């Protein structure tokens, strides 16, 4: 098992691809490489990046989480319902939003580990359940009239930097440290690399899996709060298809769907790449039809690169 060496090529590949696309876009449109546009891109990327960090943990252990977008919506609704002005202090909606995300993530982890059901199926089920909960709690309507302090999370700035970007940075550091500097991080690679070997060497595989799904749900809850606060309403149908962009970011960033490899720098670059492309295509007014095709091609290219790397090792 050589998780690190396998990563490097994928990581450099994505870094080169990212830099290349940025240079091209800078030449194609004068507004692309400006400070205000970079702020816009980073703010837009923050939500997908949080989801992508979470799903990176899960994919590294050899699992998958399709429920992200729906968990985001449900957590966002929970937070919004508690964020009306003058009702509760700000910490209540935040804690409830993240808490509900953690709970739904833990539910995924519990079924995956206790009932031995493939994560694809479990999280597909949770995807529908969480969407249903979001609709039930909101009665199918947007939840608006949120407090100013809650709306600051997604719309405010701190020392000139949009708050979502700060959330993105702090979360990135936390996730990267957890994955690369702790025993738990090493266990995650071990479980995804070879589950039997991990079990034989005394790792509590169930606990590790439980942990990654719970973290993933919690991050989706955070993303839900960011999104709700950004658009100043809880939207029961928010986040549809977000799981795909998050998984794409992880895979573009060199996380292998086979498990055992991946890192947060790559995932961050993957999320940035997706964000930069949709921003650039919007700037150049490329039709949304073509945008889908371009984005799809980049994902396929990244996966091809991934399997090419794997075959060489």
């Amino acid at each position, binding site marked *: 098992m050589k998780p690190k060496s396998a990563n490097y090529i994928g990581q450099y590949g994505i870094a080169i691809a990212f830099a290349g696309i940025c240079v091209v876009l800078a030449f194609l449109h004068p507004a692309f490489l400006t400070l205000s546009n970079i702020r*816009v891109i980073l703010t837009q990327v923050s939500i997908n990046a949080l989801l992508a960090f979470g799903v990176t943990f899960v994919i590294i252990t050899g699992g998958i989480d399709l429920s992200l977008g729906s968990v985001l919506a449900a957590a966002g609704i929970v937070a919004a319902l508690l964020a009306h002005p003058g009702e509760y202090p700000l910490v209540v909606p935040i804690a409830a939003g993240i808490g509900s995300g953690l709970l739904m993530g833990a539910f995924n982890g519990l079924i995956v580990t206790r009932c031995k059901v493939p994560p694809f199926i479990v999280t597909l089920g949770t995807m529908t359940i969480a969407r249903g909960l979001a609709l039930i709690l909101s009665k*199918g309507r947007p939840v608006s009239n949120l407090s100013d302090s809650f709306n600051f999370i997604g719309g405010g700035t701190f020392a000139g930097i949009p708050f979502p970007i700060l959330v993105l940075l702090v979360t990135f550091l936390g996730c990267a440290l957890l994955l690369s500097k702790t025993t738990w991080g090493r266990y995650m690679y071990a479980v995804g690399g070879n589950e039997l070997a991990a079990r034989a060497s005394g790792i509590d595989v169930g606990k590790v899996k439980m942990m990654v799904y719970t973290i993933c749900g919690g991050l989706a809850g955070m993303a839900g709060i960011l999104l709700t606060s950004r*658009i100043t309403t809880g*939207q029961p149908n*928010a986040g549809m298809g977000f799981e795909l962009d998050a998984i794409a970011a992880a895979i573009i960033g060199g996380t292998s769907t086979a498990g055992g490899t991946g890192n947060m720098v790559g995932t961050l670059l993957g999320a940035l790449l997706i964000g930069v492309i*949709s921003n650039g295509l919007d700037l150049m007014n490329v039709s*949304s039809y073509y945008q889908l095709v371009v984005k799809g091609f980049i994902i396929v290219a990244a996966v091809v690169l991934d399997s090419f790397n794997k075959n060489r090792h």
Partner: protein
Amino acid sequence: MYKRILPIALLSAAIWSCSGSEKAGGPVIGVSMLSLQNEFVVNVADEIEKKAGEAGARVIIVDAERSALKQVEQVESFIAQKVDAIILNPCEVEASSPAVEKAKAAGIPVVNVNSETNAVPSAFVGSDDVEAGRIAMRYINEQLKGKGNVLMMHGYMGQAAQIQRDKGAKEILAQNPGLKLLAEQSGQWDRSKAMSLTENWIQSYGPQINAIFAQNDEMGMGAVKALTEAGLKDKVIVVSIDAIPDALAAVKKGTLNATVFQNAAEQGSKAVETALKLIKKEEVEEKVIIPFKLVTE
């Protein structure tokens, strides 16, 4: 064996007794709605339920979840339940047509509400989306005094509302060469997507933008949020369609310039009225058009 059959038998007996007792009341109307995840559709459905209750009729409201196939199956089950009339809020122009044909073949009157099918129903109750597009773009034209740069935000490409609202808006653009369509892009009816799109447009066109037409209020609200944050809202006119409560509140506050009111309640109640008339074999208008209204304050 009995253990397995017993609960099923009890359950079916229970279902049978419910449906039996309810059938004993007034007429029964089966209602299949496009998507109960959409606020506007929910408002129509709520009004249908309310109006039917007042008239002593019973409604069975089901959600087609945007699937025309599901909608056809739901109508088949209405036919099997021998409902007295069906109100259909079609998912698709062509693919939902079999639902209309099957109901008519079974002798059950069908009222299409809000959107149309190729198959001709017993009656249609709704509004003309092309007109909504015209109203919105006319407003922009008036506000800009016939000259300026406009951005248009589409819904899901290919849906009836997107196609028709686009058509109406483009008609007015063609009549007013002073209006220039800077860019058009899909915001997928979604507030956060619309907000990101507007942020990107601001980066690209900045002060050149004079007006944004969003094909629904959700997207209009997203555009308003992005413009407000960029400090441009005072300089850009934003118009959208549907008049959802959020948008109405924003128009009152003056952040959204105008919304085009599509009367959900009126569509719902007229649909029930028409269905009840059809059940009694009374004369009805083939097309009941509920007019749009521009809301600017």
